[in-house]
C-alpha cells in the first residue's frame, strides 16, 4: 500500500541577515535531511523542544515553506508547490493558537466557506450543506456561524480550526501543538474529538507537541527530534517507557510526573547547541552521559528491532527500565 506521506532527504536551511545583493551573512540548518514514511491511517507523534525543527517540518509539509532539498510525496504523488489549491486539498494544518488562526474581521461562516469555495468550487447550497455536516462532526452549533472569532473560548475556537481543516477534505492533517494553548479539561475534549474524527473520516495525523504524555496518548509511533534531526523513532507505548536514545531518556525523565520526586536529570547549565555555530558529530554529544570519541561522527538513524530506529552510537539497553 502507498504510504500517506513519504519524505525523502527533506531539509531546510534558513538564510540569516539577507542583503539586497550578494550572499546572506549566515545560514542555519533548521532541519537535517530527513527520510520518513507515514502509513495511511497512522498517527505519527513528533516531539522535541523549541528550536528542534518541528514547526519548520510542519510548515514545509503544507507548502508554507519551500524545502531546501528533498521531496515530499503525498499518497504516492509528489507535491507541487506551484499550486496552493492542489496542496490544500491533500494536506491540511491545524494551528497552535486557535484564536490568532481565525481572522478577527470575518464571521465563522466566511472562514469556513473559504476552503470550500477556493479548493472545491462548491455552490452556495453545497457549501451550506457541507458546513452543517462538518459542524455536526466537531460538535459545534450552527448558530456559531454568524459570530466573530473573539466571541469564542479557546476550546471552541480550536474546534473551528479543526472544522476548517476538515472542510478541505484533505486526508492528512498536520496538528501543530493543537492543544497546548488549552486548559487540561478542554484539552482532553479536543484530543478525544480528534480521535473520533480520525476513525470517522479515515485520516492520517502528524501530531506535533512538546508534551510527552499527550503525544503518547494519541500516537501510534513517535519521532523524537533534536536539533533538526530525528534521534529516535519508535512505537508510542515503548518509546518513553524504554527509551533507546539518551536524549529521549532525558525528555522522559524531565517531564513532571505525579508521584516522582523532583530531580534535575542533568547538569543545570546545559543548553541547546548554538545553531549559528553547530557542533560537529552527534549534536547531543555535549549533554550526553554516554558520549565517547566515536560520537565525533554523526550517527545515522538505523533500525534497532521491534519497529524502532535510533541515531546513536551507544543506544541504551532496551531491557533497562
Amino acid at each position, binding site marked *: 500500500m502507498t504510504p500517506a506521506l513519504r519524505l525523502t532527504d527533506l531539509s531546510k536551511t534558513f538564510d540569516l541577515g539577507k542583503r539586497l545583493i550578494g550572499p546572506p551573512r549566515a545560514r542555519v540548518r533548521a532541519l537535517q535531511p530527513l527520510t520518513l514514511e507515514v502509513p495511511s491511517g497512522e498517527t505519527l507523534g513528533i516531539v522535541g523542544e523549541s528550536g528542534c525543527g518541528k514547526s519548520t517540518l510542519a510548515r514545509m509539509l503544507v507548502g508554507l515553506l519551500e524545502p531546501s532539498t528533498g521531496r515530499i510525496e503525498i499518497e504516492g504523488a509528489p507535491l507541487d508547490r506551484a499550486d496552493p489549491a492542489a496542496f490544500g486539498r491533500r494536506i491540511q494544518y491545524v494551528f497552535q493558537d486557535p484564536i490568532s488562526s481565525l*481572522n478577527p474581521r470575518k464571521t465563522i461562516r466566511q472562514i469556513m466557506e473559504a476552503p470550500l469555495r477556493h479548493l472545491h468550487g462548491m455552490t452556495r447550497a453545497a457549501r451550506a450543506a457541507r458546513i452543517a455536516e462538518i459542524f455536526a462532526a466537531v460538535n459545534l452549533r450552527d448558530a456559531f456561524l454568524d459570530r466573530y472569532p473573539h466571541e469564542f473560548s479557546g476550546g471552541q475556537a480550536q474546534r473551528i480550526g479543526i472544522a476548517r481543516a476538515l472542510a478541505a477534505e484533505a486526508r492528512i492533517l498536520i496538528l501543530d501543538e493543537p492543544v497546548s494553548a488549552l486548559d487540561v479539561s478542554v484539552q482532553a475534549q479536543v484530543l478525544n474529538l480528534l480521535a473520533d474524527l480520525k476513525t470517522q473520516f479515515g485520516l492520517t495525523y502528524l501530531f506535533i507537541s512538546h508534551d*510527552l504524555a499527550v503525544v503518547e496518548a*494519541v500516537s*501510534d509511533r513517535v519521532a523524537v527530534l533534536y536539533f533538526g534531526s530525528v534521534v529516535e523513532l519508535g512505537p508510542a507505548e515503548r518509546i518513553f517507557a524504554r527509551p533507546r536514545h539518551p536524549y529521549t531518556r532525558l525528555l522522559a525523565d524531565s517531564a513532571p510526573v505525579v508521584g516522582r520526586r523532583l530531580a534535575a536529570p542533568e547538569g543545570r547549565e546545559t*543548553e541547546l547547541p548554538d545553531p549559528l555555530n553547530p557542533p560537529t558529530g552527534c549534536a547531543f554529544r555535549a549533554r550526553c552521559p554516554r558520549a565517547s570519541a566515536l560520537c565525533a561522527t554523526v550517527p545515522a538513524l538505523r533500525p534497532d528491532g521491534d519497529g524502532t530506529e535510533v541515531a546513536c552510537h551507544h543506544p541504551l539497553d532496551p531491557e533497562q527500565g
Partner: protein
Amino acid sequence: MSFLRLLARNRLALAGLVVMACVCLLALVTPLLPLAAPDITDTGNRFRPPFSEGALLGTDHLGRDLLSRLLWGTRLSLAVGLAAAVTAAVLGAAIGIVAGFYGGRTDNLIMRGVDMLMAFPYILLALAIVAALGPGLMNALIAVAAVNIPFFARNIRGVTVGIAHKEFVDAARLSGMSDLRIVLTEILPNVVPVIVIAMSTTVGWMILETAGLSFLGLGSQPPVADLGSMLGEARAALITSPHTSVVPGAMILVIVMAINLLGDGVRDALDPRLKSGALNRPLPATQVARDAPVPAAQGGAALLSIDGLKTEFRVKGRVYRAVGGVDLDVRPGECLGLVGESGSGKSVTALSVMGLVASPPGVITGGSVHFDGQDLIGARYETLRRIRGDRVAYIFQDPQATLHPLYTIGTQLVEAIRAHHAVPRAEARARAVDLLGAVRIPNAAARIDSYPHELSGGMRQRVGIAMALANDPDVIIADEPTTALDVTVQAQILALLDELRRARGLAILFITHDFGVVAQLCDRVAVMYAGRIVETGPTDAILSRPAHPYTARLMACVPAPGGGRRRLATIPGLPPSVDDLPAGCAFAGRCDLVQDTCRRGEITLDPLTADRAVRCPTPLRAGAPAS
C-alpha cells in the same frame, strides 16, 4: 454606533466634529447662497472694511466681495485637501501593503525608494514637482499627495508586516486563496482602521500644505480663490487693510484646528490599544473598597496570610468576581501550590497580595493580606512600594515580557537592588554577578552585560528569578514560571527553586495548572475553581486521594505518561462566568455527583481532616483512590 459614542466622550473631538460639519455644510451650499460673484472686480470699492453695506466682510484689493471669496475659497481648499489626502492614502497604503506582504527584496527596494522621497524637505519636493509640472491647482494637488505618500506607505507597511505573519494568513493560503485575494479580504480589512487613523491626523496638514503652495502662487491661479491664494494676494495690504488677511487666515485656523481635534478623537476611538485602556494609566496600587470588617490573620506561624480576599473587576456596569473569598497562608521555607484552570482567579489572587491588580477596573472589596503581621490591603503606597520586590518578590510567566529589551540584564538587576538599598553602583553590580551565579547562569561576569534577546528562554527565566532574589526576599510569588519553557529547562528551573527555598528559607506561593509540577515542588496545594478555593491540604494526600470531585476529575483529564494510547477522561461543559455565578457550588453544573443541596446557599470550606479542607457537601471518601 459605539464608535460615535466613544468619539463623543472626547469633548474636544465632538467640538471639532461640530465645527467641521458646519464648515462642510457651508461649503456644500455655497452655490445656493445669495452671494456676490466672487471673481468680479470692482476697483471703485477696494478695501472696504468689514460690516460695510453689501459686503459683510469687506472687499479685497480688487473690490471683490470677501465673504463670497471666502466661502468659494473654502470649498475649493477643502476639496483639494481631501482629494490629496485620499490620493495619498490609497497610493501609500497600496505601496505599504505590497511591501509588507511580500517582504524580502520587494520590501527592501520599495522602502528604500520611499526613504529617498522622505530625505527631501517636503516643501522643496512639492516645489520641485510643481516646477516640473507647472503651476495650477491640479498640479499642487499632485504635489501634496506625492509628498505625503511616504508617510502612509511606512505606517501601513509596519502594520501589514505584523498581520502578514499571523496564522490566519497562513490558514487562508491553505484554503486555496490567491495572494491578491488574501491581500483584499484578509489583510485590507485589518489595515483599514490604521489608514483611517493616519488620514484623520493628516488631512488638516494637507489642507495647510495646499494653502501654502497657493500662497506662493503655485496653486490656484487668479482669479479663482482658494484660502492660500487669498492670503497671498492680501499680503501686500497686511498693514493697511489687515482684514483681507485675517479673514482667510482665521478660516484656515478654524478648519485645521477642527480637523486635528476630530482626527485625534477618531484615532483614540479606533485604536484598539487605546480602546482597551492603554491610555488609562492604572493606579500605582489596586483600589480598595472594603465594607466588611477586616479579618485578622488566621494562619498562626504563617509569614504571609491571605484571609477572605475578594477582588472584583468592574467593567461597563458588570461585576466580575474574579476572587471570591480566598484564604491561604504560607510559612517560611514552605512551598504552597495554587492550582486552577484559566479564569479560576489564581493569578488575580497573586497580584492582589501586593496591590498589583490594574485599577481601574480591579477593586479589592474584602479580606486582608497579612505579611509579617501587617495588613497590606489598603496600606499606604509608600509601604507597598518598600515591600514590593524587597520582602515579597514576583516571578512571572514570560521573562521576555517582564525584562526591558533596551537595557542589559545587569543594569536591570542593579536597578532592582538600588531601588531598595542605597548601595554604591559597583557593589550592586558585584551582587548582581553573584545572583546570576546563584541561578546557575554560566560565566555570569560576562553574561551580565547581555541584553535579554541574547539569552535563551530558560536563561531569561533564570534572570527573572535572580531579579526576584535580588533583595533576599522572604516570600516569592511565582506565577506559572515554567509554563513557557521546555521540559528539560523546566526541570532545571524547578530544581533551582527548590534548592533556593531550602537554602534560604523562602516561602513560595507557586501558581500553576500542572499537577506534575505541583507534585514535585509543593508541600501543600490549594485548588481553585471560579474564584474560590475548593480543596486544600498536603500535596501527597490530595494528589493520591482527592476529596473534591473537581480535583479528581481535573487530575483524570491529564494524561499520565506510560499509559499508552487511550481515550482521555473529560469534564463536559465550561466553568461558569464569574460575573454570573450560580447559587451554591460553582461546579454543580458539571459534577456527576451533584445533589439538591449543592445548588442551595453557601457551600463552606469545611475541614476534612486535621490538615485538609474541602468545599463540597458530599466529598469523595478520603481514601478512595483517584479515578
